[in-house]
């Protein structure tokens, strides 16, 4: 069956090298305007670019993770156009001999798998940033981002729905994070995505495509493409024609609109960059880089499933990001069960992270701390409440959980002798509830357990308390 919608993506991924693609300026985000610039990245006359080796290797890693073929002979070209954020009035990019070509990525949406082809991956330098005055007749230029390395990834027009486009992008982000070559943060601009979209005409022919730009989040991509597909369908079904043009996603209005200033008819006049020499990537270099490829998400998923006896969902969650998976595995020390560590991460740790909008890199609890908590919980030394509270506390400020439990006397009371007196008290103080239970209202037992917990400041073992309450009542 023919696809109704055809989407191709052009993704720019900022590579996390320390220094820029062609000079030693820092790539650090958030510096004062123009603080990370030098005569080379500002294109001062007489200066020359020198290629950052690591940027090439990061590009190779990215390409390998997308199952691309790395080309043995690559070169850089100049893409010529005037714009104030482009100091040399050309961007050093790659034209006809890109770093890599012909890759593919498997994506899964609603249980259905599909393959998205990768046309090419090439390296290029980023442009600067323009800030526009709200009222005035001026724009302000900050060249800090100029010449930060980018990998431009172009997919084949294999994507068949806005949802699939989003899944592809998330998978791409996951891969780049696994490789630690990019943060892929759409809000900060370290991942940027443009799309080409066309729909089939009522006659079944593939219609004219439009380019959609200015999508600043994964959700935005999905929504923009859904909107644009609908728009094109409406145009076609009412007998109109889709115009080939660039449209901008308007996040506040949730629509795409034609660019108001028609872009100049571009003629980029690509030609080989004479200031840089060609790059040859022999098999030795390629295999050295391959050695640095970490375990990729699919592989990690398979291994976790085989090694740790976890649910599909838990495995999925843990392997979604490499730092989280690493955290999990580092917490598997001593004889703690993977399942209880996984439970603490997914139930408690992730909740604390979400509340603070933190990633695993931001938390102050160490894998060893979490392992200790899991062990104490498994051995009934602490209750699940105490465990949750300690996770919350350690996420915020860190500390040694064993020492804290000892110091604050947080050990769980599961000894029947110690609990007996408290349970007697609770039964005596709550005759109504006791009556309810006797007449079959089971939920009242929860109330009594709550009372026990309160009296023990959460230290009672709730399972033990329930058992004893049931016996008594």
């Amino acid at each position, binding site marked *: 069956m023919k696809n109704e919608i055809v989407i191709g993506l052009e993704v720019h991924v900022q590579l996390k090298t320390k220094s820029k693609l062609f000079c030693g300026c820092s790539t650090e985000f958030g510096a004062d305007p123009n603080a990370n610039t030098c*005569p080379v990245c500002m294109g001062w006359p007489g200066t020359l670019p020198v290629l950052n080796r690591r940027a090439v290797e990061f590009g190779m890693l990215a390409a390998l993770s997308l199952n691309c073929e790395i080309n043995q002979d690559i070169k850089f070209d100049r893409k*010529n156009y*005037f714009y104030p954020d482009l100091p040399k009035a050309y961007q050093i990019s790659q034209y006809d001999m890109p770093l890599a070509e012909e890759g593919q990525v498997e994506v899964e949406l609603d249980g259905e798998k599909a393959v998205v082809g990768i046309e090419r991956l090439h390296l290029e330098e980023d442009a600067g940033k323009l800030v526009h005055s709200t009222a005035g007749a001026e724009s302000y230029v900050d060249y800090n981002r100029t010449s930060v390395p980018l990998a431009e990834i172009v997919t084949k027009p294999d994507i068949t729905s806005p949802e699939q486009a989003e899944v592809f992008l998330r998978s791409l982000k996951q891969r780049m994070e696994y490789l630690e070559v990019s943060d892929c943060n759409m809000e900060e601009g370290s991942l940027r995505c443009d799309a080409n979209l066309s729909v089939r005409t009522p006659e079944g022919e593939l219609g004219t495509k439009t380019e959609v730009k200015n999508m600043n989040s994964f959700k935005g991509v999905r929504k923009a493409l859904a909107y644009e597909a609908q728009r094109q369908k409406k145009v076609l079904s009412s007998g109109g024609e889709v115009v080939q043009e660039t449209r901008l996603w308007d996040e506040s209005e949730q629509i795409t609109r034609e660019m108001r200033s028609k872009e100049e008819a571009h003629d980029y006049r690509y*030609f080989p960059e004479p200031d840089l020499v060609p790059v040859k990537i022999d098999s030795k270099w390629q295999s050295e880089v391959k050695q640095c490829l970490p375990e990729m998400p699919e592989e990690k998923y398979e291994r976790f499933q085989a090694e740790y006896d976890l649910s599909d969902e838990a495995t999925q969650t843990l392997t979604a990001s490499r730092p989280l998976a690493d955290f999990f595995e580092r917490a598997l020390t001593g004889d703690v069960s993977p399942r209880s560590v996984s439970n603490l991460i997914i139930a408690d740790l992730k909740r604390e992270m979400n509340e603070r909008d933190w990633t695993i890199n931001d938390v102050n609890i160490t894998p060893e701390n979490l392992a200790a908590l899991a062990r104490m919980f498994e051995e009934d030394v602490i209750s699940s409440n105490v465990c949750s509270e300690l996770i919350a506390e350690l996420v915020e400020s860190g500390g040694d959980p064993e020492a804290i439990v000892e110091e604050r006397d947080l050990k769980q009371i599961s000894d029947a002798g110690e609990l007996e007196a408290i349970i007697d008290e609770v039964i005596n103080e709550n005759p109504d509830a006791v009556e309810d239970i006797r007449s079959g209202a089971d939920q009242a037992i929860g109330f009594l357990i709550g009372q026990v917990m309160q009296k023990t400041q959460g230290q009672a073992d709730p399972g033990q308390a329930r058992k004893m309450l049931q016996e008594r009542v």
Partner: protein
Amino acid sequence: METELLDLSLNELQNKLQNSEISPVELVEASISRYQNFDKEINSFVSFNSKESLQKAREVDVSRENGPLAGIPLALKDNLCRAGYATTCGSNILEGHRPPYTATAVKAIEEAGAIIVGNANMDEFAMGSSTETSAYGLTRNPWDTERVPGGSSGGSAAAVAAGIVPAALGSDTGGSIRQPAAFSGVVGFKPTYGRVSRYGLIAFASSLDQIGPITRTVEDAALLTEIISGHDPADSTSLDQPVPEYHGNINPKPENLTVGIPAEYFGEGVDEEVETIVRQAASDLKAEGAELVDVSLSTTEQAISAYYVIATAEASSNLARFDGVRYGPRAQEFEDMIDMYSQTRAEGFGAEVKRRIMLGTFVLSSGYYEAYYGKAQKVRTLIKRDFENAFEKCDLILTPTTPTAAFKLGSRVDDPVQMYMNDVLTAPTNLAGLPAITLPVDANSDGLPVAAQLIGPSLSEQMLFDIAYLLQELSPWEPCSAPLKE
């Protein structure tokens, strides 16, 4: 008497300075005095720092540890950046531009102790063969002030010829060192592409540009080349090869030497007198034991066309950065961003630069790329092959440097194609990346210098200096300054 100091070679000056026969102050004073006497007439400098140079001369210690050029005044072509000094490329668009960095080659001569007295005039952005297109006025030939000094390093060549400085640095994209050196009766050397770092040289055509010396003797050219050569991590295209001591190793051995004579360099368009003089130079070498063989460089005629396509293409891109945003003046009146760019550039660039930007833009533009730029780069491959084949039969190639001696001011400036033909004998070596030296060998009937060019294989610098030195000894021309009247 004092001013004749500047007629001495670098080596002689160095010895006199070290033996305390002269002082750096005397030397710089001599330079200033020649500048004051002659430069009104020839306009070889766009800037000249008398006071500061004297100050430096007073401070300099000329002992050997301070470098082979300690205390010696030199000039720079105005496209070589020096931190804090105006570097304008002979253009209004860089008026008052002071780069915050120094070209690697300039750093090298500074570290060798040279006192840089000023910046020499040039064709705007090195685009020209007569030094008539500078925004700072034209330069005249010291041998005949009604004639051009050649270009684009015409200011450097004229300053050396006039004895204002004993040597200068220039840049050569299609002959811009050799052609003015030939017209001005001095020695000019274009090193192998990559031998000298281009960092800090304001680019004209990046794949062709090389910095090189303009001097009065071959030995001086060898010395300066030795100083400025070498690998530079800031220039990806600079060669990572050891630099021999060219100057100390000059050893002319004409025996077992085969000199190639390419018919294409002596044919149509080459002045008869020039041909006779250069053939005589070949005979002089033969008399010393060298063997002369005919070689063919069959693409010579097309090479100059390929050169102009490639050079202007690269230039159109290199010069796009001059837009009034980060440096240089900005047009006062404009409507919007595009108009600001277009007006700034219209006001900042001269006619020849505009012509070449337009041509370069055209040959790269869609629909024309393959027919012009792509084709020219393929022709370039054949030009390279021509030279490689020739060097299977000979050690070096001897040719005239220019088709004619210096021509009259104003005679070609309005005829671009005729002007471009000046580079016909020099540009092929830039396309092939080869080293070539020019030296005056005789005067023509007008008393103007006529030069021979020696072209060698890649990195054959030493051989070129050896044989050029021999030719300097054999030829009737004696290294000297032009007889300018005060």
